[in-house]
């Protein structure tokens, strides 16, 4: 179940040719230039969980905190807030660290 997204598009967000990224098996629509983190936030997707199972979400959006980290195209600990979307990109949040 996905909770209601806590983020929405602003007026300035363009349409453009959509791109699809697959996050934990779920295809999510994205716009060119989006970061993976922004796409996930818009979709209400969950990010990593800490070792007690607690949910986490992007905190700094500038690459410092690693709360947005996920396995992107097989590379673990990739900061999704720094990563622009690419068609067919796969993102796994349930990495064991």
């Amino acid at each position, binding site marked *: 179940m996905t*909770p*209601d*997204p*806590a*983020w*929405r*598009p*602003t*007026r*300035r*967000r*363009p349409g*453009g040719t959509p791109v699809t990224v697959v996050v934990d098996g779920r295809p999510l629509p994205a*716009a*060119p*230039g*989006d*970061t993976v983190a*922004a796409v996930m*936030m*818009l979709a209400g997707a969950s*990010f990593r969980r*800490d*070792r*007690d199972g*607690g*949910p*986490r*979400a*992007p*905190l*700094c*959006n*500038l*690459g*410092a*905190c*690693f*709360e947005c*980290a996920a396995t*992107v*195209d097989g*590379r*673990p*600990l*990739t900061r999704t807030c*720094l*990563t*622009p979307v690419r068609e067919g990109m796969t993102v796994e949040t349930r990495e064991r*660290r």
Partner: protein
Amino acid sequence: MTFDLAVVGAGPAGMAAALAAADRGLRVVVVDEQQRAGGQIFRRPPPSRDTAFRPSAGYAWAAGLIRRFDSDTRLTKRFGWSAVGALYDDDRPGVLELAVDRPGDGLRVIAARRLLIATGAYDLPVAFPGWTLPGVVMAGGAQTLVKAQHIAPVGDVVLAGAHPLLLLVADKLMREGVTVREVAFAQGVPKPAELVRALGAVPGHVRMLAEAGGIVAGLVRSGVRLSTRTVVTAAEGADRLSRVRLARLDRSGRTTGPARAVEAAHLVLGYGFSPSTDLARQLGCDLRWASARGGWVVAHDERLRTSVPHVLVAGEPSGVAGADHARAQGTLAGLVAAAELGHPVPAPAFAAARRAVRRAARFATVVQRLFAPDREALGRLATPDTLICRCEAVTRADLDACLAASPFISGVNALKLSCRAGMGPCQGRYCESGVASVLAAARGRHIGLGGSFAAHLPIRPVPLGDLRALDPDASGDRPGGDETPPGP
């Protein structure tokens, strides 16, 4: 190929340095892990959806600087690459090897004769109960999500902290139709509005505060509650934030009375900035403690040379002082690099650059004094159960237990080794200030005496296989070797 100058960071400092150096004939490479130049203050939407760049009022030079940087074909630019460390090559004295990494491309090495650390700053982390809950976001994060990624929070927002950036973010959110419930400042009287007015009287006051004056008036008109001497003591909710608790601070910086609850879906935190000094640390540059300038800053001489040969620093890592100052230092650093490498720099050019730095520094000092974080008071916000190290899930109680068990621990590095705080993927950037506060409180010693976390290559997590590229003995072919990394 060997560059004359490698610049890490394409903010105001890095851009100005690169252009000044290239103007003097240096071959310059600029590396930034963001996708575009501008740094944190001028973070831009992706090129595919770019509209004309409108810098915040007062930074009239920004558009010109960015345009010049973007269109300069002399510069080699590497966006999306993170600098993960630098090494000296014994076989090539006077040459530094900067290791850079990009997901999908792996690790490469850039050789350069001078290195400029222009890595900027990030929001100062402050630990308190519930700060790991989704819904809590740093002020810079909220700002850049709206401004560069075009997404806005749904539901009511509370902003809390101690830095005027909060006002800018509150204004940005309201313009997007977001409901801002309250903006809470930890400072007491003078109230933010009075502060802003007072600063307006300072000649050449920092522009951000000029803007803030109008914003305060607007917020008050829209019925947003603006509170002073108020801190957030807890973020609460099941899987997401639903409520924040705000408490009054007394004159000694201690919370008084019961905390009041405010329903909110998002909490935006802005306590100021921490300089990004990890690359400087990895290189062994001396740091010094300067609380009002962000904490640990990179020591340098008046030519911006660090304690490590061939390594210069400009912008926030030399002490947080804002965009005007960062740009001025960048220009000076570019000229210094040129002069050191034997390119003629006329004395008047130097003198003008030095004057610009001094002028910007004067104004920065006023702001620093007014908004210096009360680290002791902020440190007290962490309760025993509060996670100080978010990555490794180390609580304040864990740290206190370590400290009680090992009475000889007197520095943050020893504490890190004994209880793992600071060993996670963020490499301590988000817990160093919290760990230092706990240590200082437990030992009753000044926070600056606890030292700083050491940084080692790689300063960002890099897959193990990629690191082999750095080992000269591993095999004959080092991926990327001495080459410059391919463009984006």
